């Protein structure tokens, strides 16, 4: 932006997209409040904010999913009405959603033409798309196999198909919603190179993310959203991660986790040769050896789908496996009738599952009912053959207070809490049982920065009490911030274990992609 002609061009050209005073309410919740934003053509504009800050709502308005209550949208200087996705596509807006909108058992080509076919018969459309796909591949370095089925290609490729879909529809403005959530660091770097290429070809890119690093590395300008409002728009070169974090949360936040070096004790969890074969007969764990000691956090890094979930499920007692798993020297039953959550708890294992909304909570049940799950046989929760609901409620209120769950109302249904507060309910239930081993998966997925800080502190505090913690996360930053040792999983195997202090994102990133350094024994 220092280039003078560049500045002049920006001053005179109409913005690629401009929002003026956009407001949108869902019932009593004001999701977007009087939002204005200008994005110049040929730039990358970041929108950053916590979960629930209103980023997705704003983009849904831009893509015609919702109609704004108030406000105007200008595309290329012209006032534009976007009542549906078709209008957005016609206005040259393309969107790459966080969850891809692809038909799994269609080919790449079929997915690309879907909705943008020429004429009633498929043959000519497919032929035309095949040709223009080649051109696009050349122009932007986006190579894909047009005849591959979506279900057979990796997520990085699938995302590429989404971008191609937008480009095939002649999008000039590309919106990407949390695009790196499912990518390896290497894939993410590749994505950003593609975005850079698109930008140099004159495309305008809006990048929605909660990752500060991505904003700092790729964007030209950045807008910060908090509680439905746009709190600031700044040039990326003139801000810092700490300043952005403060704007997002509204107070100073600790981006680093404060922790002292670990004091590892006895081996609590000892896994040897653990194998898991899934329902389809695919081997998901191919001989895992891991140890976790008392007073340490072992982080398991890896791209989603490389066996981490299966590892947690076997240890948690709801998936069968073969091999040996010992907790405090006692072997766990991996296949028989003692392979369930109940007997795992008796071994002193607590589990905060990866998918809290499906495995950790029952969303339609109230907080106090959720607090009793798994521990409903606790004598304190019972009176005779009946549940002692009053005792459970009282206990829930106490736990909510200690874990700062907001609102502290035990009678609220789980679905009515924010992601962070849902996680705190699960954490409170599991940690307060004083386990010897805590299994915790994706502790801060969908959790806002303020709550992340709190959850991380709780995990470290538990470690400092001398508990063993097995942490699974796809967020490499989180793994590095919390773990004392890091194990990287790839394709059902452990690629290696490193001391957290002696490794970095680059090395772990390579291991996550299945590459280990030659000559380095593990």
């Amino acid at each position, binding site marked *: 932006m220092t280039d003078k002609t560049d500045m002049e061009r920006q001053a005179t050209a109409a913005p690629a997209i401009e929002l003026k005073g956009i407001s949108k309410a869902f019932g009593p919740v004001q999701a977007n409040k009087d939002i204005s934003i200008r994005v110049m053509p040929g730039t990358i504009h970041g929108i950053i904010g916590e979960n629930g800050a209103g980023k997705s709502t704003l983009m849904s308005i831009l893509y015609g*999913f919702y109609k704004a209550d108030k406000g105007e949208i200008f595309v290329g200087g012209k006032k534009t009405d976007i009542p549906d996705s078709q209008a957005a596509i016609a206005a040259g807006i393309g969107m790459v959603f966080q969850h891809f*909108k692809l038909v799994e058992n269609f080919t790449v080509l079929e997915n690309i033409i879907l*909705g943008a076919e020429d004429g009633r018969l498929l043959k000519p459309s497919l032929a035309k798309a095949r040709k223009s796909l080649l051109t696009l591949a050349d122009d932007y370095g986006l190579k894909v196999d047009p005849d591959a089925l979506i279900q057979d290609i990796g997520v990085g490729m699938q995302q590429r198909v989404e971008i191609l879909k937008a480009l095939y529809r002649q999008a000039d403005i590309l919106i990407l919603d949390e695009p790196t959530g499912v990518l390896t660091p290497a894939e993410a770097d590749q994505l950003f190179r593609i975005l850079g290429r698109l930008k140099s070809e004159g495309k305008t890119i809006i990048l929605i993310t909660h990752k500060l690093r991505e904003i700092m590395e790729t964007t030209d300008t950045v807008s910060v959203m908090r509680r439905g409002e746009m709190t600031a728009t700044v040039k990326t070169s003139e801000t810092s991660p700490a300043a952005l974090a403060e704007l997002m949360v509204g107070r100073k936040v600790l981006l680093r986790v404060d922790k002292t070096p670990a004091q590892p004790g006895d081996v609590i969890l000892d896994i040897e040769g653990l194998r898991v074969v899934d329902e389809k007969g695919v081997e998901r764990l191919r001989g895992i050896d891991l140890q976790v000691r008392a007073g340490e956090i072992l982080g398991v890094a890896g791209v989603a789908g490389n066996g981490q979930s299966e590892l947690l499920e076997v240890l948690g007692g709801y998936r069968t496996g073969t091999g040996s798993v010992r907790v405090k020297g006692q072997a766990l039953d991996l296949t028989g009738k003692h392979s369930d959550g109940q007997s795992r708890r008796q071994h002193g294992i607590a589990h905060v599952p990866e998918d809290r909304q499906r495995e950790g909570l029952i969303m339609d049940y109230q907080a106090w009912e959720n607090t009793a799950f798994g521990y409903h046989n606790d004598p304190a929760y019972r009176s005779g053959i009946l549940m002692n609901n009053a005792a459970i409620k009282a206990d829930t209120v106490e736990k909510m207070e200690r874990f700062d769950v907001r609102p502290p109302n035990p009678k609220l249904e789980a679905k009515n809490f924010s992601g962070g507060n849902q996680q705190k309910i699960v954490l409170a239930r599991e940690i307060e049982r004083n386990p010897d081993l805590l299994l915790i998966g994706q502790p801060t997925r969908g959790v806002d920065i303020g709550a992340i800080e709190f959850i991380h502190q709780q995990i470290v505090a538990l470690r400092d009490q001398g508990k063993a913690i097995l942490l699974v996360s796809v967020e490499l930053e989180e793994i590095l911030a919390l773990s004392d040792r890091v194990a990287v999983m790839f394709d059902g195997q452990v690629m290696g274990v490193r001391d957290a202090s002696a490794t970095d994102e680059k090395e772990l990133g390579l291991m996550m992609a299945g590459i280990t350094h030659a000559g380095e024994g593990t």
Partner: protein
Amino acid sequence: MDYMTLIQLLDSTVRLATPLLLACLAGLFSERAGIFDIGLDGKMLAAAFFSAAIAAISGSVWLGLLAGIAASLALSLLHGLASITFRGNQLISGVAINFLAAGLTVLIAQSWFQQGGRTPSLIGGARFNPITLPFADQIEPTPFIGPLYAELISGHSILVYMAFAAVPLTWWLLYRTRFGLRLRAVGENPAAVDTAGVSVIGLRYAAVCICGVLCGIAGAYLSTALQAGFIKDMSAGRGYIALAALIFAKWRPWYALWATLLFGLFGALETRPDVIEALIGIKVQGQLLGALPYVMTVIILAGFVGKAIPPRAGGEPYVKER
């Protein structure tokens, strides 16, 4: 078993498979678009009654066919309204349609014709009569090919030929046209269709309407071609067997043809216990044969014969995600 018996058996297989095939293709369109439809039976029943009734009153079977299609289409739209527009439970809506049709047809039949819930017997132009294909009579004396052509291929009503022609047509529509691509996509991932700027609701209604038309023809076939008039509950669970065939066929048109022919053969054998006895030497109860389609469906569902993967978005009302 001699050759003529075989031809007769196959001939009745074709007759019995026809309504199954039409209903199965009807279900295929609906379910490929993500709308489960267990109301096939009810729609066939309603169509059977209205086509017989209008044919009896007007004396024209074609008017009857139109009335049957209209009745089935009306129930289809009801199903669409409940499950697409109001995002209700598709199974409950389907069950409701079956009950509605079972009750209403008898009630209206009684009120119109006072014959105990039947329509008068259809004669002459009020029925679909067999069509003799060209040269059938000339070829008949030829050994082997003669009976095959004259008895098995020729001599069916026009609806039978329509049903069999519907198979390649469905295949072509599904795999070679824009409409088919979108229809299959909406049953797999409606969000992909929606974000591509195509109306999920429009596509699903189109699918449900095609389903209604095909069920209408199936129902009309029952009362104006297979039989001569409507009797109470004459669909006799064929809608359910068609659904079983749909699973058996893994939601594919050509497989649907083979599946319904197979189930039609079971039906034909049910009426000829003597053939089975001659073939395998033991007496088999007709009811056992009647249960075979269901037994085979259970076997398929249990995954013994390949895997039947239903359309991924089937049964789920589409709600826009944020």
